[in-house]
């Protein structure tokens, strides 16, 4: 890509999930991770919660790290949160990112409203990369990946009412 084009591209917004990169193998996941992906296919952001002490946790795990209960549930969340931290990737490290000219793209750590410190990695869409900032209110949306439409990713956009 010519340098000028590249500079212009830096102000482009990410509009959809990345293509050509590794995705979870939905057929072979541990049981305690399935609820998350079943939720996204139903366009609901379900986060694992301990059935006993009612604390959320992410990424999912077999046992509650607080009370050590093995019982969990998958309540839907309201999908609201804010950007806790972010990185904007300009240099691709996976071949498909470069081949499909998918840079720059952002990786955001989103803190969800449900519980302090409950965070999920995602991308913020439809916002120029240099306008995404820590503390920005966002809300969830859902998009199937190109490579496997069964893998539906929770993505985030600027919150409509903040």
């Amino acid at each position, binding site marked *: 890509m010519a340098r000028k084009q590249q500079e212009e591209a830096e102000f482009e917004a990410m509009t959809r999930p990345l293509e050509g990169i*590794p995705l*979870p193998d939905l057929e072979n996941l*541990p049981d305690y991770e399935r609820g998350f992906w079943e939720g996204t296919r139903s366009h609901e952001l379900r986060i694992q919660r301990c059935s006993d002490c009612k604390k959320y946790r992410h990424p999912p795990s077999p046992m509650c790290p607080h009370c050590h209960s093995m019982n969990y549930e998958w309540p839907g969340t309201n999908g609201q949160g804010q950007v806790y931290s972010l990185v904007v990737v300009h240099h691709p*490290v996976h071949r498909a990112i470069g081949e499909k000219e998918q840079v720059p793209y952002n990786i955001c750590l989103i803190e969800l409203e449900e519980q302090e410190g409950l965070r999920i*990695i995602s991308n913020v869409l439809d916002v120029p990369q240099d306008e995404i900032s820590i503390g920005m209110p966002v809300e969830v949306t859902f998009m199937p990946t190109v490579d496997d439409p069964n893998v539906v990713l929770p993505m985030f956009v600027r919150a409509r009412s903040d």
Partner: protein
Amino acid sequence: MTETITPADHNAIRDRAAIVGIGETEFSWDSGKSELQLASEAIKNACDDAGISPHDIDGMVRYDSDNNTETMLVQALGIKTLRHWESIAFGGGAGNATVGHAAAAIAAGYCNYAVCFRAGNLRSNVRLGQARGPERIPGGSRSFLVPWGAMAPAHNFGMFVRRYMHQYGATSRDFGWVAVTLRHHASRNPRALRRKPITIEDHQRSRMVADPLRLLDFCQENDGAAAIVMTTPERARDLRHSKTLVLVEAAAQGSGPSIDGVVFRPDLAVAESAHTARDLWSRARLTAKDMDAFMFYDHFTPFCLLGLEAYGFVPFGEARDFVQGGDNIRFDGILPTNTHGGNHSEAYIHGLTHPQEAVRLIRGTSTAQPPKKQINRVLSCSSTAQLSAAVIIRRG
């Protein structure tokens, strides 16, 4: 934080192990050698430096990410009997743990001569900074990172850096002073891969790779090996460097909570080595003020600032002032820092070159030896965000 686990008066390894030899291979972008050859050369060089034969080695502490196994090296080096072996997980950030563990094995009498090593074609073979694939992820924390493009160390560690900048007002330019200073040190070091001095403007003009990390914030990816030979202080007095006894005074490792996947931690603006630091100072009964030099694991330059704060050289949030202009952290400054040029400019051997440089500083043989003061104690540590380790190395 959990309470201190070790009583302050209990430090079973204190001064009971000596570092008697350091060695490395040439550092390069493409060694053209097998990793076994790299390991063999570095260990032989460290034994030569100590004045022992590889036949004398009976203890080995390796990185679990190293492709050279104990059996391969027993055979390659002609070791007669390996009395003690172990491996350290989590690579670079925990690299100093190899020295701490070898010291413990020597102090316990498990072996007479222990070697710590790391050898790899970390550029010409599989690069840590490159993502692998195509593949399907069988669950685990990667499946909650990779689908959104979080695939490289810079992506995870960049999250810490961005949060740190947000919390304390640090800027890319502040990190630039670390880059400029480390390169200045490397410019004096014939082993170093990157020796051409850079300016703060060079750093600021270097391309953004994973914003907020610029190209000149990154460590090298290269081929090479490093090794360290240790024994008891009594044996050390009969070896080649008998005039300068180099002792391991204390060691610590630490994790902090919720670290699988690196970024899923409570506070990304504080290095988890705050945990390691607390235990280290408690065991050693020392503080940052007692250290004459600071060797930190520089996978990315901002972690100099996080390390200075985690180990208490400066209060939280003030490291950006301390590194300003680079004077304080230069070899002739208040706190000589990574005088070899570090992972950033000398070579990336997964953190093992830092305790090696601590040994040189105490011997007075660094290529950026502080001119006006004798170096008696050096902290070699990581402030990384995933399982950190630290050792205090002192003049005996």
